């Protein structure tokens, strides 16, 4: 028999620890400003307890057999993509938006199983042209400030 605890139990415990940490930081705030954060951390801790209790109740009701719509283990594609987005952010921040974005769009489309290179490059080019025109030419967004290569894409 697969007697597992409903994951809400673990969720509740983690959240409870989070509330304790928040409380510890909040009490160091001086003066009136501390009241709300302290009150919130206590209320949140109560909610976390309720979540845990509900989790235990569900464990009893369903006797260890659960069907979750989404799970952490099953989401490796999503987390992998999040990593790509993070790398894109780093490229954006340190190189430039106009270098990072084509790299990201081309790579991501391929990764997400877009078969045709022609469509891939066309979409990337179209996006770059339109967004450059909109953000830099019309709205004069100072995105040249971002990244070492940013200033080469500036229009004065």
């Amino acid at each position, binding site marked *: 028999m697969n007697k597992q605890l409903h994951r809400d139990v673990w969720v509740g415990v983690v959240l409870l620890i989070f509330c304790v940490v928040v409380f510890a930081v909040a009490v160091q705030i001086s003066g009136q400003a501390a009241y709300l954060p302290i009150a919130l951390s206590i209320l949140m801790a109560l909610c976390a307890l309720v979540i845990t209790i509900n989790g235990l109740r569900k464990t009893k009701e369903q006797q260890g057999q659960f069907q979750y719509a989404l799970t952490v283990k099953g989401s490796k594609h999503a987390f992998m993509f999040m990593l790509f987005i993070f790398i894109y952010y780093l490229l954006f921040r340190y190189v430039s938006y106009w270098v990072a974005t084509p790299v990201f769009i081309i790579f991501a489309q391929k990764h997400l199983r877009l078969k045709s290179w022609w469509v891939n490059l066309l979409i990337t080019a179209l996006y770059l042209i339109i967004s450059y025109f909109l953000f830099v030419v019309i709205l004069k967004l*100072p995105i040249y400030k971002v990244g070492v290569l940013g200033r080469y894409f500036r229009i004065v």
Partner: protein
Amino acid sequence: MKKLLAIVSACTLTFLLAACSSGGAQSTSAQSSPSKISDDFPGETITLVCPFSAGGGTDLGARYMATALSDQLGVNVVVENETGSGGWVAWTDLINGDYSDGNTIGLINQNFVMGEIDPENPRDYNLDDVQLLCNQALDYNVLAIRTSDDRFTDIESFLEYAKNNSVLVSAQATGITDGDSTTAEWFNKTFGTQISVIPVDGASDSRGMFLAGDTDVLFASISDVLSSYQSGEMKILCVFADQRSDFMPDIPTIEEASGQKLIAFAARGYFYPKSVDSKIVSYMTDAMMKAMQDKTYIQNMSSLGLQLDNTSGDEYVDLLNSQVTTREAIWG
């Protein structure tokens, strides 16, 4: 597919229209460019960094200056807004970043000098970390009451009332960093009044509470209340300055009205980071002083209710520091 193309071209056309109108709007008449000091300066664009949001008083002053300055220098002058932490995001960036080529100028106001003495968040920078160019405007503070208020009609009756009743006034913050809070504290210390301060988020909140009757008096700058004064919505009891203001010549100074002196104002001006060459600093100060003589500039600034001022150099340092000294004396 065809429809998509049609839509894309329609949108692009509209954007082009917007771009054309924006291009037309910012016509900078480039006169013969004055001699360049170095290869980098003046560059193709001079940027004025405004630490406050677009549309506000400081921002507008910067935009009027940008137009006048670009006529003077013959290059494009643009304003960029870099907001946050009461101006400190911009100032920290300008002091620490690489802006030594002189193509980026920062705006500065009282918040900068007050930063060092802020008891909650003492800042690491003061006037020693920057090179001041010149001031642009001086905005003196006033004490305003509602015209319909029947509890007091002038400074004397106000002081009498405030000594015996608690009075509420709004300010952006409590404590030495805020001018209005300091004014309240000065009243309490000098006359024994019972003024307490309620912190609000901005000047329009202050005005709203005042008009609603939630606060009893309003400490504000002349530019904020000028139109209300002219329309009779508010009565001004005094100006916190050495002399009467040209905008309100019939309003007495606090010294005339009560015998005690307090000077409270807001100043806005320009600065370069320490890393900029001193030749560039004097060149730009010169250019700005000339730009401030421009007729359109003068007209625009006075329509905002701002008193023009062009203190520069060491005198400007003294001007900014004077408010620090004043406030430190009040708060003890």
